[in-house]
């Protein structure tokens, strides 16, 4: 193979022996395997069906440095933009665990929460079959890249029947100093049968002049009747791009309530791959995004209903302003024999400018007979009659527009089942859009 022209291998030369946990043999082998897979696949281009609407070309010529532990950033306190909630807080700066800023606090019995790197170091063998159990490095270049650099991230494991009262607050800070930086966090989340937890994931950009690329993989495994609320707030800086792959394996009767609120960043792609492997699982992958300036927000979802009688819902609402671009690709796949499947997808876009763009591609692929599946997608401008109604009550045009934009997004946020986080996300919207609706 000729010289690799690649922003993530070129800059610093790939050297797995210098990575943390190099002493763990299976880890090093897997990294090399993954690096080879990534070289084979290359950074995704628009030629791939899945990447038709999201172009990573901009990243190609950036001289990214890999965030390492030595590249330490001392931050006296958490930035103000990080939501303040009563939670078990675990903080990562450019993907690396920061014990100083974290405040994990006392954990209930049967809960393991901390740095994945530390957990692997303590007991390497127990992770060999856990990591990448749901990730196919030959199918996803970025997941392969993530594996090639796999080092740290969130480790959460709940024993059978453990219910956590307080949410877990996973704070991911992106900090760029004088150099463009890339990092590849891996989060491993496993809930035992009947266990319940809530995760708030806050992505906050600290300084914004240089570019960054965060390439995260979260592997989520839900036992029977487990319940996970997973809420992602994305407030990256304007020059930060991010890819996040979340895989969910859902066992019988498990519940996943997910919501992503994308407010910042440059090129952001959230990909969710869910396998429903048990009946009566209830999966909700919802969200809202506000792509103003030149932001590009891509939501790509695939839900596989592999067994009968399960439910999935994906409702997304997006506002595209200025030169903002939105992508919504969602596929609900219903396996042969998966009768009684209820799969719903809905995407609604509000276009505020002529230069804004939306590409929505909801899809159903159904091989079972008796299913209740639907998908829909709409896009349009602000409703003139609503605007006039507000103005006719004395509200000026600018504020009326802002209120309507917010109202559009607030409606999506109401899907969040966790009331405190639902309120928090409403407040974050108001904060960004500058009106209280």
């Amino acid at each position, binding site marked *: 193979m000729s010289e690799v022209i690649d922003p993530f291998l070129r800059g610093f030369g790939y050297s797995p022996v210098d990575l943390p946990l190099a002493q763990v043999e299976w880890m090093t082998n897997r990294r090399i395997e993954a690096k080879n897979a990534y070289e084979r696949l290359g950074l995704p281009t628009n030629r791939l069906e899945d990447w038709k609407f999201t172009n990573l070309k901009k990243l190609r010529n950036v001289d990214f440095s890999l965030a390492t532990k030595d590249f330490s950033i001392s931050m006296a306190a958490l930035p103000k933009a990080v939501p303040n909630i009563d939670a078990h807080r675990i903080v990562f700066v450019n993907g690396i665990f920061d014990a100083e800023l974290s405040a994990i606090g006392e954990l209930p019995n049967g809960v393991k929460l901390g740095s994945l790197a530390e957990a692997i170091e303590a007991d390497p063998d127990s992770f060999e079959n856990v990591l990448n159990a749901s990730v196919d490095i030959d199918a996803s270049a970025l997941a392969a890249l993530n594996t090639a650099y796999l080092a740290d991230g969130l480790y959460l494991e709940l024993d059978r029947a453990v219910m956590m009262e307080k949410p877990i607050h996973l704070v991911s800070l992106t900090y760029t100093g004088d150099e463009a930086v890339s990092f590849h966090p891996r989060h491993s989340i496993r809930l035992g049968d009947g266990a319940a937890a809530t995760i708030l994931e806050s992505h906050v950009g600290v300084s914004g002049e240089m570019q960054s690329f965060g390439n995260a993989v979260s592997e989520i495994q839900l036992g029977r009747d487990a319940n996970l609320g997973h809420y992602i707030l994305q407030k990256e800086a304007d020059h930060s791009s991010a890819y996040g792959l979340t895989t969910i394996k859902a066992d019988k009767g498990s519940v996943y309530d997910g919501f992503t609120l994308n407010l910042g960043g440059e090129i952001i792609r959230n990909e969710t791959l869910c396998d429903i492997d048990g009946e009566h699982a209830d999966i909700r992958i919802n969200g809202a995004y506000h792509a103003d300036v030149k932001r590009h927000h891509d939501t790509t979802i695939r839900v596989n209903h592999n067994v009968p009688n399960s439910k999935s819902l994906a409702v997304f609402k997006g506002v595209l302003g200025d030169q903002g671009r939105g992508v919504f690709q969602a596929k609900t796949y219903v396996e042969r024999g998966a009768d009684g499947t209820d799969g719903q997808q809905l995407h609604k876009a509000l276009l505020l400018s002529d230069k804004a763009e939306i590409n929505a591609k909801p899809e159903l692929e159904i091989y079972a007979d008796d299913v209740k599946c639907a998908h829909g997608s709409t896009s349009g401008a602000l409703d003139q009659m*609503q605007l006039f109604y507000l103005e006719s*009550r*004395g*509200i000026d045009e600018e504020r009326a527009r802002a*209120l309507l934009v917010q109202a559009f997004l607030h409606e999506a946020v109401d899907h969040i089942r966790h009331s405190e986080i639902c309120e928090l996300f409403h407040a974050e919207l108001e904060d960004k859009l500058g009106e209280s609706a």
Partner: protein
Amino acid sequence: MSLLEIKDLHATIHGKEILKGVNLTIRPGEVHAIMGPNGAGKSTLSYVLSGREGYEVTGGSVTFDGKDLFELEANERACEGLFLAFQYPVEIPGITNTTFLKHALNAKRKYHGEAELDGLEFVKLMRSKSKELGMPDDMLKRPVNVGFSGGEKKRNETLQMALLEPKLALLDETDSGLDIDALRVVAEGVNRLRSPERGVLCITHYQRLLDYLVPDFVHVLAEGKIVKSGDKNLALELEKTGYAEFGSAA
């Protein structure tokens, strides 16, 4: 001084002339009714006065409380004291009624250089007004007009009017689609607002609302012009004869 003075008003929608020389003067304290066949231009008149986009004024003038109405944006007209009760109140998902009303009231206060009300003060005021109209609290928490029945929507319009205390209320077919109870509530709401300083322009197709809201003057608008004016007896007459003589079957 007159509250509203419309002189030879001409207006078009998409190049089509709908108002063809309307003249009307409303003095403080007066209640006027405009009746007329469907398609006569009644709603058009209310939209032109309140400043809806897409309506082009091609001639004439309107003075509101001494000001040139067409110099004011729609929201400024509202802040100056013009209120349009919509024929079809608009649903706004995602904004609660309370928030909407608070923004509206505070916009007006701000316009007049008054301090904005805080959440608590506002809720107190709103509760007292909504009680008068027999509105349940949950209607205030629900998104604006979403899932409201026809009667609830009109009640909601009345509540907005009660809060904003306009100098001139334009009621566009406020009685359409109402049952008798709702009609009474709405009429009482308007009557409560009547004062020697305020005016009401009530647009209606039917006479029944005027039983409760007794007008000082009744006008017939047909084919874009006021073709006849009289007192409340004109409304009773029209109820019997219909609008046939004014060139419409309605």
